[in-house]
């Protein structure tokens, strides 16, 4: 943490737990008899309950969207850029909630949790969950928080998918959906990347069919390679060139398979540090959740039919250099919404950061986002 908390940070925050005893039926046909959700909130819910914003996190992210857990914490929450007093999502005006998705390894019930029925860690036996399942759990969670309708549900990437699913499954409980760098379904290429990542984990000799904890080991190499691959796809060619070029770590090539180029060093570091903070079974599960998302499938592949009963206004954003969730994928969303005569605005931000752009302080992005949030505020009467 910086020595003093910046004025535009929510500052020190604490996560909260909520326990649910009511069984949750999942898309897969399986049932979670009970579960916990971990979440954080920033700002204050107004007496009318109209100013609540739900943040949905992406693949490997969590409920810690803004602020710091302690003075020792090095980095703030994952969306510090956009969430805080006076920021795009202004915590002076909005009550902001971010919950960790089911199946995560960051505190909500998931593969690393103990299965109350067996007394052992779920591991690979944790059921696969879908975006629809998540949204269902978030709706139950909203009930418990006393929030009847979200002023906005906001998310980037996999988070944007949740925002879209909200408009489909709970049309009267969401006023605005803000869908950033997302897609209405993954392309074959995108699924292919996920499959390579999964194969890296599944074929790691230390994976033990997911029971690595029982074997006192971790599929470190597999998870590391999965993350390295993912990281490449989150950056653009330009961003990598700008960041690393062909810079050599020791100023010369070594004619061996150790690290020659800076980019190799960076990827290895990213991969290795990921292993310490993420779980392999969770990574497998989350990538499947991404692959399965396709709300149009239930409607004969007609996305506009899927959105037909949505009542929300939509704000769709994409970034020019994002090739993992390319602008064309966002345009497909917009096209479907236009076909349905929905309220929708679309902005394609010029940025060379690739998919990671949605986490970056890009002035055009923050400007458009803030201006749209004014509309959210107006509709929420705050």
């Amino acid at each position, binding site marked *: 943490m910086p020595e003093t908390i910046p004025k535009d940070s929510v500052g020190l925050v604490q996560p909260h737990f909520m326990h649910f005893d009511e069984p949750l039926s999942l898309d897969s046909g399986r049932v979670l008899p009970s579960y916990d959700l971990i979440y954080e909130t920033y700002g204050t819910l107004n007496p009318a309950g109209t100013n609540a914003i739900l943040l949905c996190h992406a693949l490997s992210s969590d409920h810690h969207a803004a602020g710091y857990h302690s003075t020792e914490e090095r980095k703030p929450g994952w969306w510090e850029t956009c969430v805080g007093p006076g920021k795009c999502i202004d915590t002076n005006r909005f009550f902001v909630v971010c919950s960790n998705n089911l199946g995560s390894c960051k505190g909500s019930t998931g593969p690393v949790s103990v299965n109350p029925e067996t007394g052992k860690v779920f591991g690979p036996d944790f059921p696969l969950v879908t975006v629809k399942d998540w949204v269902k759990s978030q709706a139950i969670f909203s009930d418990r928080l006393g929030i009847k309708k979200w002023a906005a549900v906001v998310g980037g990437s996999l988070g944007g998918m949740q925002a879209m699913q909200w408009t489909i499954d709970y049309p009267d409980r969401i006023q605005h959906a803000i869908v950033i760098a997302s897609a209405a379904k993954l392309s074959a290429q995108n699924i292919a990347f996920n499959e390579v990542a999964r194969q890296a984990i599944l074929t790691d000799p230390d994976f033990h069919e997911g029971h690595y904890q029982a074997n006192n080991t971790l599929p470190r190499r597999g998870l590391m390679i999965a993350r390295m691959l993912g990281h490449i796809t989150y950056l653009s060619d330009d961003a990598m060139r700008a960041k690393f070029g062909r810079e050599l770590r020791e100023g010369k090539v070594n004619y061996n398979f150790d690290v020659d180029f800076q980019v190799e060093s960076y990827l290895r570091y990213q991969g290795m540090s990921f292993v310490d903070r993420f779980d392999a079974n969770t990574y497998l599960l989350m990538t499947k959740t991404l692959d399965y998302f396709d709300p149009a499938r239930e409607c004969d592949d007609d996305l506009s039919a899927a959105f037909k009963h949505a009542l929300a206004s939509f704000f769709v954003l994409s970034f020019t250099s994002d090739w993992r969730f390319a602008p064309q994928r966002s345009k497909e969303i917009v096209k479907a919404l236009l076909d349905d005569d929905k309220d929708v605005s679309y902005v394609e931000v010029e940025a060379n950061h690739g998919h990671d752009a949605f986490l970056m302080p890009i002035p*055009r992005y923050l400007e458009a986002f803030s201006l749209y949030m*004014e509309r959210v505020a107006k509709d929420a009467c705050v």
Partner: protein
Amino acid sequence: MNFELGPELNLISQWIKPNSRVLDMGCGAGTLMQHLGNSLGVTGYGLEIDPDKIALCLQAGINVIQSDIEEGLVDFFDEDSFDYVIMGQTLQAMRQPSRLLDEMMRIGKQGIVTFPNFGHWKSRVQIGLEGHMPVTPALPSSWHNTPNIHLCTLMDFESLCRERSIEILERKVMNNEHKTTIGTRLFPNLLGEIALYRFRKMEL
């Protein structure tokens, strides 16, 4: 929000029926869409490419879609999506105005365009007598930095409409004070500086 609706937009808005669906291509700051929404209950979208203007649209609270008019329409719009497709002061800056008119007729029941009339006497004098490309209140840029690459006269536009089987429903011509006078009515192609047309696909 207070805003001044210029005479040109004012004339356009007189053509729009209440509660209709409108696409404003090259919507700028969204002034027309905002006005139509507030005063006539019109719904629809503005299309704009310039991020500064898009920001103004978001500020105005209108639905804005960032897109290039010439490349982007097929990405977004099906046939007959709108009651009116409007293109104010933009046609002359397009690479393929004729194709764009076809596109307007594909996605809208009616089209509305406005453009500076190149047949206005000032342009004729400057090019015919003085021998240089016109610079007038309606055409303020010099030849080398103008966005207007396909200027035309009223006569040219009307002949293109005939060629593309487009039926002109209404025409208004304004002088440089944005007024319709006896002169602009009698000699529109000579005395009109700004032309406004409302049209639809000819019934075959």
